[in-house]
């Protein structure tokens, strides 16, 4: 089969899943609206706390009274993107209970289409607040056109990593809910120690050790560095570990996600109706 035929088939099937998921989300529109506002509540406290610190000209690494809004608003965007980690398992569980997951499993298509379909539908659903907040950040702290393109690439990359994580958790949500709940707890812990809402320098040294081993921290942090440094070459050369972790996770997590999905499904199937 030629490349274009495969590409056409992939696009067709992925778009079918994306369209279906968007239609299902839009069945109850207020649910998605509340999902937009929930992260705002989360960032309110850091805004208040950091604002108080910055009144006394405190600095946390690169974050000052002038640019901390970039930090906070990017935190909001990350929390919206985090929906992928939570929503994909929730979606798979819904599919499990209506046995539509069985319909998808017996359908002749690659699980990558499923992963990308979920990713695109979630990105579509959060696109409005993400764009609004990026525009707000841009107004506070403008960046060059090329940096914007790089930021967009990073956001898509982060989304793919989160979608892969969601997929891994998702298969446990349908096959073993014990493991799913444990994984959910670990994910909460990992995100807590990823400096989404508070800067790295605010944390005590003991927790910093944990943060330094947290890949999610590097993945999120590179987005912030890219914005405030506004120089792609500088960001890549100054933060090689960040870039390395990001690329490795971008390649590995989605592939491992699909592999684990197939493996676990084959071994344990669906349970817990």
């Amino acid at each position: 089969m030629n490349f274009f035929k495969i590409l056409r088939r992939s696009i067709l099937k992925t778009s079918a899943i994306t369209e279906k998921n968007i239609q299902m989300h839009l069945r109850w529109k207020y649910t998605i609206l509340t999902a937009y506002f929930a992260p705002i509540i989360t960032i309110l406290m850091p805004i208040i706390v950091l604002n108080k610190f910055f009144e006394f000209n405190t600095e946390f690494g690169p974050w000052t009274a002038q640019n901390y809004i970039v930090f906070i608003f990017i935190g909001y965007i990350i929390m919206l993107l985090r929906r992928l980690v939570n929503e994909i398992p929730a979606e798979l569980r819904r599919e499990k209970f209506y046995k539509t997951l069985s319909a998808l499993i017996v359908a002749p298509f690659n699980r990558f289409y499923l992963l990308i379909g979920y990713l695109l539908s979630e990105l579509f659903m959060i696109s409005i607040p993400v764009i609004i907040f990026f525009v707000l950040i841009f107004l506070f702290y403008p960046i060059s056109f090329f940096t914007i393109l790089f930021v967009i690439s990073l956001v898509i990359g982060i989304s793919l990593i989160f979608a892969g994580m969601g997929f891994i958790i998702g298969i446990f949500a349908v096959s073993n809910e014990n493991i799913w709940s444990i994984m959910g707890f670990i994910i909460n812990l990992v995100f807590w120690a990823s400096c989404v809402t508070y800067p790295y320098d605010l944390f005590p040294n003991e927790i910093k050790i944990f943060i330094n081993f947290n890949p999610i921290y590097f993945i999120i942090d590179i987005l912030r560095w890219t914005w405030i440094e506004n120089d792609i070459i500088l960001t890549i050369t100054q933060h090689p570990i960040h870039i390395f972790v990001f690329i490795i996770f971008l390649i590995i997590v989605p592939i491992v996600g699909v592999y684990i999905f197939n493996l676990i499904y084959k071994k344990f199937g669906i349970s817990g109706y």
Partner: protein
Amino acid sequence: MDSTIIETFNLSKIYRLKRKGKKILALNDVNIAIKEGEKFGLLGPNGAGKTTLVSILSTLIQPTKGYAIIDGYNILQKPNQVKNKIGLMLGRDMIYHRLTGYANLKFFCKIYEISDYKEKIKNIAKELNLKKWLNEYVEKYSTGMRVKLSLCRILLLDRKILFLDEPTLGLDIKTTNFIVEKMKKIGKTIFLTSHNMNVVEKLCDRVAFINNGNILKVGNKTDFKNFMEKGIKIDIGIYQKKDKLKLELDQQDFIIKTKVIENGLIIYLKERKHYKDLFSILNKYLVYKLREEEMSLEQLFLKII
């Protein structure tokens, strides 16, 4: 009609229960062969292993032992090729309740690469009296309508083999008959599981009985009719000397059982050939009624298990 399209070889499935390491034998060395175009029914009570067998054959789950060949492909070695040949319907499930009927069918058409699906959806929905409901959310559908939509879905997929697991569960007689009539007209191989004898009797060319994971008997309708004749139930109407007749019949080898009822006797004749001997006895009595009661598949099933 001659080539075998589904064949299982010692198909077994053990479910391991987490507590106390207990095992449940859901399927035990199942060997069946189904010919192309055949409508095959699998009858059994709840928990007999029907859904497990369908799940294995449709590649949803893997067997513990054995394998199956579907249209030339081994389900374990070539599951993707098998998926290209089959359609699966699990009762009224496998449809999205948050979507409209049309959106459901459109989605599956895209996934299964069905061309010109708009026209096909319209036609099939019209045939199943679902057209005016297509743009409504499935959550508003009645049970019967959901089954019809599931049937629409599976028919649209245009697969060679259709696995239908309890497709008429929870439906009223009218809708059941409607669904059965529609399925009769499908020119595909159908593997139907049910615990409704009437549905299987009306639709299927051959029937297998399954219980506790074991296939008890496989045969066509004639085989079963012959089997049924081994215990022919006869209603005899008699006003006088009921007890005397019972006593006389009880002494005969060709009578399995006798039972006195208000206006006569119910007897079970071993075989139809013994009617002559029965008549020679009944001639001595004033019999006003003699009626052979045909055994339904339901009675047969109870007899087999």
